[in-house]
């Protein structure tokens, strides 16, 4: 490779936060350089300082507490950290642009898309409104947003998450910056949308030759996008190098651990012998499940959940949101049943219906008892056999209660006799925490530990079915791997059945026994893991699997079909219901929706 002049160079950059106990380093001694057209990934888990680094380059560190304490950021020969604010402002958005993680909140809700785009352009170029509008239209067309003309007059809430992220990209790239900083640009998006956005970024980079700093926790995304990688931990560089070298031969122990923790889809196109032995274990599982099929823990038959939308003078129901439409499934004792699908597909609604949090039609049977026929006492005893673990462990724990109090609360509510203190201590050690943690408060724990507390609380009543609703999605990969291992241990130890709800195909592939894929409130494919992942039949399942970023930079990705348009709406006028899919059996227990 011929040496190209650096577009951006970071020299021994240190960023600190001033606290009551003095200066606290957030980023220490970070150096890197990169050339036009290059993609540099900064990878790391939460608290690694990767986002702070990007804000430092942009000169957007929150003043006055956080500031650059030493080092330099040099863009095209110009030092940025000491630049006065008005000169830095001219660079921001023009020479260096940035896109953020949360497309839902990153756009101003009270201004039109057009206004937000044109003001970004007009902040840097002395042109008329009409000219800026024309440029904005070009930018929206470049990010392949449908009906760009119409989007200019729309407000952010009228657009889906994927569309908003395209708008953010259009806004960042309208002025053809030399450097684009993408801070977790696809983390909040569904896998198929993530796929489209990543493809888009790559295409735009090819066209414009800009350099990209990609900040992410997702090693799959790193492998697909980056030329070079910096792995950061606690504000320091752990390892830095070419992407292939980092994945093939990581030198630092932390990088090795990080890569080992990444959930991976099993490689089913592997060599014959591997495949054969794999098939045998899968066969055993099928056998086990058959054995217990007589007494399912939960049985759903033709379950329908609709939410009415009211409007007009008399507040009549004019439309219904068809969240769940005719779902049937059974969960057997001791099995992990995974429900996968993208946001809005109805997977969480099923969890809520199962515990009686939303009204449903159709049959839901838990432990042989029909839900809905139960009186208050029956419902209460039912909650003993089904427990939920939610996505956000911080929001799920009352900050004013001690951990011991939180875990003992279900015991108190259900008036379970016995020594609650001993039970709490036992539960804490089961989930890998110390018994003396019972006296502490939730804020004293890390995210992974909090999720363990939630699991301990869910286990307190010896449930037969555990519902894990995106329970590991908010956790860092290394923590996620440990929590998944814990859930696996609990399954073997207590024989608890788990309904595992997730959007992450790779995670599902590591822990599920059986899988159901949901789309628009209906199951489109179900079967055991080997059937669904090894031999996906429905086009939507295939698209989901193909969209998962693979943490292997040497792999050449097969060109995926780009889906035109958005997922259709689950809202229908009152009295109308969407067409039900008809399932046909392809092999034993493997059902696929017919077209």
């Amino acid at each position, binding site marked *: 490779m011929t040496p190209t002049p650096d577009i951006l160079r970071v020299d021994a950059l240190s960023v600190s936060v001033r606290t009551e106990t003095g200066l606290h380093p957030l980023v220490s001694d970070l150096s890197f350089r990169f050339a036009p057209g290059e993609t540099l990934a900064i990878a790391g888990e939460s608290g690694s300082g990767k986002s702070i680094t990007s804000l430092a380059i*942009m000169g*957007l560190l929150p003043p006055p507490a956080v500031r650059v304490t030493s080092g330099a950021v040099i863009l095209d020969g110009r030092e940025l950290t000491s630049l006065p604010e008005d000169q830095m*402002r*001219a*660079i*921001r*958005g*023009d020479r260096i*642009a*940035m896109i*953020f993680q*949360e497309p839902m*909140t*990153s*756009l*101003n*809700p*009270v*201004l039109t898309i057009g206004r937000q785009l044109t*003001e*970004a352009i007009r*902040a*840097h170029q002395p042109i008329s409104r009409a000219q800026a509008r024309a440029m904005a239209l070009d930018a929206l067309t470049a990010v392949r947003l449908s009906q760009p003309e119409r989007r200019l007059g729309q*407000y952010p*809430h009228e657009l889906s998450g994927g569309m908003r992220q395209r708008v*953010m990209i259009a*806004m960042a790239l309208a002025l053809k910056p030399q450097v684009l900083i993408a801070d977790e640009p696809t983390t909040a998006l569904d896998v198929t949308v993530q796929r489209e956005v990543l493809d888009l970024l790559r295409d735009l980079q090819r066209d414009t030759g800009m350099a990209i700093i990609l900040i992410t926790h997702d090693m799959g995304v790193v492998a697909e996008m980056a030329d070079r990688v910096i792995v950061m931990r606690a504000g320091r560089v752990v390892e830095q190098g070419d992407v292939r070298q980092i994945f093939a031969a990581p030198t630092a122990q932390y990088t090795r651990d990080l890569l080992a923790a990444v959930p991976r889809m099993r490689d089913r196109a592997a060599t014959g012998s591997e495949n054969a032995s794999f098939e045998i274990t899968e066969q055993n599982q099928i056998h086990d499940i058959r054995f217990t099929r007589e007494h399912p823990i939960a049985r759903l038959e033709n379950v329908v959940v609709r939410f009415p939308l009211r*409007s*007009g*003078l008399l507040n009549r129901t004019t439309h219904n949101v068809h969240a769940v439409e005719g779902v049937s499934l059974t969960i057997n004792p001791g099995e992990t049943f995974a429900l996968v699908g993208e946001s809005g597909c109805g997977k969480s609604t099923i969890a809520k219906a199962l515990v009686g949090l939303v009204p449903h039609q159709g049959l839901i049977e838990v432990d042989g008892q029909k839900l809905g026929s139960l009186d208050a006492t029956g419902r209460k005893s039912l909650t003993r056999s089904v427990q939920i673990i939610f996505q956000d462990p911080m929001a799920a724990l009352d900050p004013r209660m001690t951990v011991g109090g939180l875990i003992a609360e279900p015991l108190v509510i259900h008036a379970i006799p016995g020594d609650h203190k001993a039970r709490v201590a036992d539960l804490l050690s089961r989930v890998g925490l110390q018994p003396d943690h019972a006296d502490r408060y939730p804020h004293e724990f890390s995210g992974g530990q909090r999720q363990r507390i939630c699991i301990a609380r869910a286990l307190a009543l010896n449930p037969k079915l555990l519902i894990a609703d995106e329970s590991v999605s908010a956790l860092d990969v290394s923590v996620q791997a440990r929590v998944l291992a814990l859930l696996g241990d609990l399954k073997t130890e207590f024989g608890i059945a788990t309904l595992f709800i997730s959007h992450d195909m790779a995670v599902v592939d590591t822990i599920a026994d059986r899988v159901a894929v949901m789309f628009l409130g209906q199951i489109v494919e179900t079967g055991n893991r080997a059937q669904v992942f090894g031999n996906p039949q429905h086009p939507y399942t295939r698209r989901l699997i193909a969209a998962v970023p693979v943490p292997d930079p040497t792999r050449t990705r097969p060109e995926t079909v780009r889906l035109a348009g958005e997922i259709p709406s689950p809202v229908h006028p009152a009295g109308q219901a969407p067409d039900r899919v008809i399932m046909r059996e392809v092999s034993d227990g493997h059902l696929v929706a017919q077209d």
Partner: protein
Amino acid sequence: MPAYLARRLFQSALILLGVSFITFFLLFVLPADPVRQIAGRSATPQTVENIRRELGLDQPFVVQYGRYLWGLVQGDMGRSYLQKTDVSTLIAARLPPTLLLMAAGIACELVLGLAMGMVAALRRGRATDNVLMMTSFVAVSAPQFVVSLILLYIFAVRLGWFPIGGYGTWHHLVLPAVTLGILGSGWYARMMRSSMVEVLRADFIRTARAKGLTRRAVIFRHALPNAILPIIAMIGIDIGIFMGGIVVVEGVFGWPGIGQLAWQAIQRVDIPIIMGVTLVSACAIVLGNLLADLITPFIDPRIRIR
């Protein structure tokens, strides 16, 4: 939109009906006897009885309330017991000064309060913030008559810039309006500060800064409209509290508004006037809230009514 407006107006009518019932009932069970007030101390029991019958006050509650409502539907708010004039005429004469004072007072409190809150939020944690929040705390907790007397003493008695009381020119308006403004501003300053602090932390503010916008554009175009949204709803609710302040301020400054009218009527148990003033105030509050709800969608497209 027309359906929404119709529903809201219907709800408003129900609220006014409820207010009229509760007020009428409270006045009915009140131990004070309006007839004694009219007849005077020396009246014979016969005269008292006559007056009572004449005013229909000997009838049971349901009949009295029914008659009042029936009159109200026809646009008749009754006659004052003591002033022997139609209540509607009395209120019509007193309403313009009160509305003027209200408008000026609300403008004062919004300008003062929102400015203070915004500056405090932008200077969060610094000396300016502390001083402003301390000031707003004093403003919130100072009794109305104290503030008005201090202002009167300094600006009317000592400096002689404004008249001590009365009604007529804009000179007369300044002190009462500023008094009302100071009282409300503390409240708005605190709300505006917390709203603004929250908005300044929002992701879209970071986006706006990352675009390279000037600080002014970020604050006035991006932060302010979002920060002001919760405040607008509060203005509607605030009108009720504001009416209470007006009664006192009108009294202190001799402002010939309905606050004074109400005060005199309460002292003399002049039921038709009390009813009339209460209903007009309730109307103002209901309309204020409706107005706030109708304005919000113009700023916030997310709740635009289809």
